[in-house]
């Protein structure tokens, strides 16, 4: 705000705003074109809908497969987020507070997950699941979604717990609190901000995940929303407004979360990456 109004300043601002518009415009374009009829879309792909219609959405809901996919995605996202928060908090607390043989190894083991090229694990994980016989179940995707969320979660939580004075835990312990009470009644509530960040990132990742879903799930009744969108996009490749409505439906929860919690989400991504 304090910068003087000079020509370079105007040019730089204009260029940056133009750039920022190119990052958000495609999604806005998708949203308003999803409200057009196919005829209106082919007339002009740029114009705002003159006669908005929910035809595409009605059509998608009538077919109905989207409900199953949304429910599945919600289940995978909520369940894996809960598991990630719980498991990573236990691990992070122990790593941050106690010295024990193997501590460094456990820490490195979890950090490794941040550097692994995860799609390379698709085929090996598929082989293992096929051998055990756990492909295509309601819980199949929960395991990889939880596992891959753990690395980042352990990392963020461990750093946060380290900054809480250990004297707090010790005072509670002296007063007769058990380890369990110290962890979950005393320290966990203090960790609320980082728990929120971890929960948001986990939810986003699980809701959006596609690679493991397409590898491990064949059964329609367990397909999450990205997998549904890919199938739907293949079937409706020429009905552009319908495809766009599908894209909007797959993104609504994510966009809503981003609007309300953008600071926390950005912070989590930045913090996680810097530690990697």
């Amino acid at each position, binding site marked *: 705000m304090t910068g003087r109004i000079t020509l370079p300043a105007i040019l730089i601002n204009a260029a940056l705003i133009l750039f920022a518009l190119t990052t958000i415009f495609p999604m806005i374009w998708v949203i308003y074109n999803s409200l057009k009829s196919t005829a209106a879309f082919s007339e002009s792909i740029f114009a705002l809908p003159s006669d908005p219609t929910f035809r595409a959405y009605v059509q998608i809901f009538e077919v109905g497969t989207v409900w199953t996919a949304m429910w599945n995605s919600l289940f995978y996202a909520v369940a894996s987020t809960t598991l990630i928060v719980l498991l990573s908090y236990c691990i992070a607390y122990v790593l941050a507070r106690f010295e024990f043989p193997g501590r460094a190894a456990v820490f490195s083991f979890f950090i490794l997950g941040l*550097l692994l090229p995860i799609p*390379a694990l698709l085929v*090996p994980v598929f082989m293992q699941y096929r051998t055990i016989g756990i492909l295509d179940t309601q819980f199949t995707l929960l395991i990889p979604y939880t596992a891959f969320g753990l690395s980042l979660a352990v990392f963020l939580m461990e750093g946060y717990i380290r900054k809480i004075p250990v004297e707090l835990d010790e005072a509670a312990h002296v007063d007769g609190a058990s380890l369990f009470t110290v962890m979950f009644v005393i320290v966990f509530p203090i960790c609320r901000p980082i728990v929120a960040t971890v929960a948001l990132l986990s939810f986003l990742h699980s809701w*959006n995940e596609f690679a493991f879903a397409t590898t491990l799930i064949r059964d329609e009744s367990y397909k999450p929303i990205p997998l549904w969108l890919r199938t739907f996009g293949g079937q409706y490749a020429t009905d552009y407004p319908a495809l766009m409505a599908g894209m909007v439906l797959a993104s609504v929860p994510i966009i809503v979360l981003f609007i309300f919690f953008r600071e926390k989400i*950005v912070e989590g991504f930045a913090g996680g990456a810097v530690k990697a």
Partner: protein
Amino acid sequence: MAPRAFQPSTIAIWLFLLPGIVVYGGVVLTPLIGGFYYSLFETKNFQFHWAGLANYVRLWGDGDFWFTLRNNFIIILLSVIFQVTTAFIIAVLMNSRLVIAPKFLRTAIFFPVILSPVVTSFVWILVFDINSGLLNNTLEAIGLGGLQQKWLDDPKIVIYSVTVALVWQYIGLFLVIFLSGLSAINQETIEAAEVDGASTFQKTIYVIFPQLASTWSVAIVLAISGGLKIFEHIFVMTGGGPGLSSTVVAQYAYSQSFLRANFSYGNTIAIAIVVLSLTLVSLTIWAFNRFVVKDRI
């Protein structure tokens, strides 16, 4: 940290660690071991026969494998040039007080990061569509119709088209990384340079850049490991085609396994990617620590 008076038994500690280790190890560690094991066999009609290192010998001489790996390196190189560098420049500009709406810019540029790769892939399918696409129509509208291309169907340019989509989606991640790096550097050094009459350019090169060395290392490591992680976008946008022209290694492993039913070879490629990625990342971190970063945190 020194042991404290408040120290639970080793058993109690491991009881808290165990559930996480089992879940995580079962998806990260045992598949890697299993994958390596299967890579030592040959698959014929879903039967496995011991083959020793034959798959690795085949991989070494497999031109298709090297071609798909080359695609990963094209993506990595272009993201370092366009994604990391642009993000750095934008971050420095946003930090310079010249910019009027930094919060809006950051939020807008970061926005695509949170979208599902399947959604953004369809966004770019629609942008690149030959007839109804945003890009070809825009070119025509501004009188540059001659530049229209079959963005996703021309084997010569398809790898660059998909790279544009990737750069677009994840540039915001690199932006927030540099912004958080910048917020941690010593503001006094910048003010001192201003007092001494340094230009914006001089400030950036001589004062800001050296203090951001470790942030650069993070960004480069991320670009390299990210470039070897590419799978979903290309899977959805082109399926790796036309032909092999936009196939990356992870998809090559996938199609060898699921389309050719050669799971042993698919596992071999998977193991090779993991080894390659970890080696490259370690080398990058080592090189940065050795040659660039002076003050390690």
